């Protein structure tokens, strides 16, 4: 006898209240998108009967997970959509989508020629070719590639790391490795200041978020398994500086790719959360430069909100005496990783982010702080205000020597 009449099928917990539709940033700007309830649980009932009911408009889902955050019934609305896209979706522009999704491959190829690639990527002629041939919006500027990968820099500095008795592993992610090694350097500096040495994973692959979003599920699974195996071997917690990489490895691996990450999940932590917990427990202390001054706003990335971790970053930042911090209302910035780079999505991407851009401009800060690198690209592109990771802010704000002394055992 059925005790509860509560379905094990997550889609059936949906009461059809439409709260998810209400908060969906894409539904608000795109009449072609049926909204999360329709694309998720409603559509799923029909797709179970016949996959022919798959609606190509599911490609518009940003996977921002705002629907799941508000759902009073715990329906994994966006997961249902993501799984179906992997199962039935077809890339609208296979070459471009593969290129955008292959962050590792493209990054490895570009970094050695970054001196040449960066100016080229910025050229009008390149942009117009990418727009016309590849369907990458010419209104976009690609994030600049670094001239030296983070891992190359780290190899030269890694021996220093062994002097620390306590160790953490760092999952740097593609952005730090290929585009912005400075964030990784800031991370290492901060860790060293609080008495921890940094190790990299035995093997690290792109977390796969772009592969998932562009429909390359099998490749995403392969890379995820490499990461899970490496994390499993790492004897310490694995810290990250990207909210999306963190979220992907903790939740999407299991919910969307169907992998078992139960053993690894709790080890994967965003650095701000890890640091906050250590400070709370009295294990770590920070000392700040008296002359550090900055007026900034904090933008909660959608995946931060999904994890419910924005408060760790915010509270940590609030420890900085010289930081005048305003926390913005949570709105999606509209880029959703590779989504916003696609020509056909440019206008949606811009329109979705409009509320956030206005809020930022109204606050008139010197910097925007966010835990997500793709939010950073979007915010910088539309507000021209420098956008930084909390770790970079902390690394800049701490008094390195004093902090080291405070944490020396």
């Amino acid at each position, binding site marked *: 006898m059925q005790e509860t009449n509560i379905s094990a099928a997550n889609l059936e917990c949906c009461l*059809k*209240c439409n709260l998810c539709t209400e908060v969906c940033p894409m539904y608000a700007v795109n009449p072609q998108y049926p909204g999360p309830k329709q694309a998720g649980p409603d559509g799923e009932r029909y797709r179970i009967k016949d996959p022919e009911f798959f609606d190509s408009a599911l490609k518009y889902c940003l996977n921002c997970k705002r629907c799941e955050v508000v759902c009073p019934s715990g329906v994994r609305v966006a997961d249902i959509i993501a799984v179906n896209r992997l199962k039935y979706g077809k890339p609208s522009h296979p070459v471009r989508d593969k290129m955008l999704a292959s962050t590792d491959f493209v990054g490895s190829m570009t970094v050695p020629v970054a001196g040449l690639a960066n100016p080229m990527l910025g050229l009008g002629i390149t942009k117009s070719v990418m727009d016309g041939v590849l369907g990458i919006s010419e209104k976009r500027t690609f994030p600049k590639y670094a001239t030296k990968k983070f891992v190359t820099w780290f190899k030269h500095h890694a021996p220093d790391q062994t002097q620390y008795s306590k160790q953490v592993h760092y999952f740097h992610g593609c952005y730090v490795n290929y585009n912005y090694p400075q964030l990784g350097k800031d991370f290492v500096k901060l860790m060293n200041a609080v008495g921890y040495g940094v190790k990299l994973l035995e093997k690290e692959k792109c977390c796969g978020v772009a592969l998932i979003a562009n429909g390359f599920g099998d490749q995403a699974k392969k890379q995820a398994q490499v990461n899970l195996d490496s994390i499993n071997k790492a004897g310490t917690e694995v810290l990250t500086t990207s909210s999306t990489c963190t979220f992907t490895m903790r939740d999407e691996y299991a919910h969307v790719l169907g992998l078992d990450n139960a053993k690894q999940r709790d080890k994967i932590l965003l650095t701000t959360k890890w640091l906050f917990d250590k400070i709370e427990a009295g294990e770590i202390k920070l000392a700040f430069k008296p002359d550090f001054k900055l007026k900034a706003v904090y933008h909660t990335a959608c995946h931060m909100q999904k994890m419910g971790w924005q408060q760790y970053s915010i509270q940590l930042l609030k420890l900085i005496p010289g930081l005048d911090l305003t926390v913005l209302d949570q709105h999606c910035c509209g880029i959703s990783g590779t989504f916003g780079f696609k020509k056909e999505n440019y206008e949606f991407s811009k329109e979705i982010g409009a509320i956030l851009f206005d809020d930022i401009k109204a606050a008139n800060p010197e910097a925007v702080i966010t835990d997500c690198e793709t939010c950073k690209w979007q915010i910088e592109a539309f507000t021209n205000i420098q956008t930084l990771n909390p770790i970079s802010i902390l690394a800049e704000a701490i008094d390195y020597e004093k902090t080291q002394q405070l944490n020396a055992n």
Partner: protein
Amino acid sequence: MRTEYDVIIIGGGATGAGTARDCAMRGLKTLLVERADIADGASGRNHGLLHSGARYAVNDRESAAECIGENLILRRIAAACVEETEGLFITLPEDDLEYQAKFVECCKAAGIKAEAIDPKLALKLEPEINPEIIGAVKVPDASVDPFRLVAANVLDAKLHGADILTGWEVVEFIKEMVTITGVRIRNVKTGETKAIRAHYTVNAAGIWGAHIAELAGVHIGMLPSKGALLVFGHRAAKMVINRCRKPANADILVPGDVVSVIGTTSDKVPFEECDDMKVTRREVEILLTEGCKLVPSLATTRIIRAYAGVRPLVADDSDPSGRNVSRGIVLLDHSKRDGIRGFISITGGKLTTYRLMAEMTTDLICKKLGLEKPCETAIKPLPGSEPEAANLPHKTWTVGQKAAFNRHGGCVTQMDFAQNNTEEICECEHVTRAEIAYAVHNLGVKTLDDLRRRTRVGMGTCQSSFCVLKAAKVLAEELGTPDAAQQLVRDFLRERWKGIKPVCWGDQMREAEHMRNLYKEAAK
């Protein structure tokens, strides 16, 4: 509307609708009278199973043979209403495996392609079945949507010139000596009465046929048998799953469109209860307990609704005690049986054999009228089921268009999916404004409940909580009676609530509470 016909058919179920179609196709001036709505009785309250006949093979070979014959015909002529899911008869450890051998043998004798397969293969075909099965037989069962089937027959009858009156009941027979020459009918809503004359009147009123017969002055011994069923929120299995044993309670699970239906129970009920069947807690328990043995995941699948229908079992005329039940189709020529001319009763049978019942009835009428016109209902497809309709679906279709095609087959081309009409009114079932407009203007819709039977409006997991207002507004607009919307809402919610009540716990309770709070006033 005329007042004189060749044939009046009483009852808008599958049999009545099928008979109306057959009569009209053979050129008879035909009227169908239904007191409520088409498919409102047992025709709309069953499994929606297109029997292969296997279930009857052991005990009733004649019915089994009729079923497989009709099964193969309906796959062709009612392609839009039938889903060729195929079926399994599974043997559980507690069942006698020897029955299976006898079962397969009897199926073969009745002309049913029944094939005993390795339980492992059965689990591959349908991973949701109980993994502990010790035997499995594959049979050509299928799923049929009874609402669409009846609606398509009515539509085709109309296209062939028949008149359809719903919301009118027969109150009296007009007799000349021993000949019935017509009926007096009354509008259920307004009380208006009309006299209609015809050469022949056909009683196709299912269990209510006993009452109709009394009105005509003849007696048909009928035994109302209640069958309760449960609807699950989505498809729990894609094939029809039967239990390979002597037919008993809750041993068939059918994928009915996007849901799964488990049934049935079987209990004698008094005639007074036939108009208002309520599913009891005991019935829900039986259905669930037995259903979980077929497909264990039913234990963790949300039940959205319970309903019950009445089988019109007919007492065998040859048994004076009235206890023995006739098997199969019962066609009564009352001039031969009772000396009453101009009156024919068609009853017994099954949803699967409705077309054959209609053919037999129409043959009899034609014979009496001296008309030599062959039956074409086994050859000519129903509206929407034309073979070329299969090529229609297009990649660019919205989900609403695909769903409309799923329900109406080729008739989808008659829907106007212009810009504003693609809006989904019922989101659970993807029913668009275009589909509603089509149903109202072509399928005789007067209430939201009629609309539900034609389109699935309000049949999804929210049971109309979020579409009833929108649907009422659109319906009232299409009917040209915008003031009626509020009453439409009230009536519909009451009807929906009736089916939710017996399964109202867990998630369904949350949904119901949600609905109750939304419509506190309207539901009163």
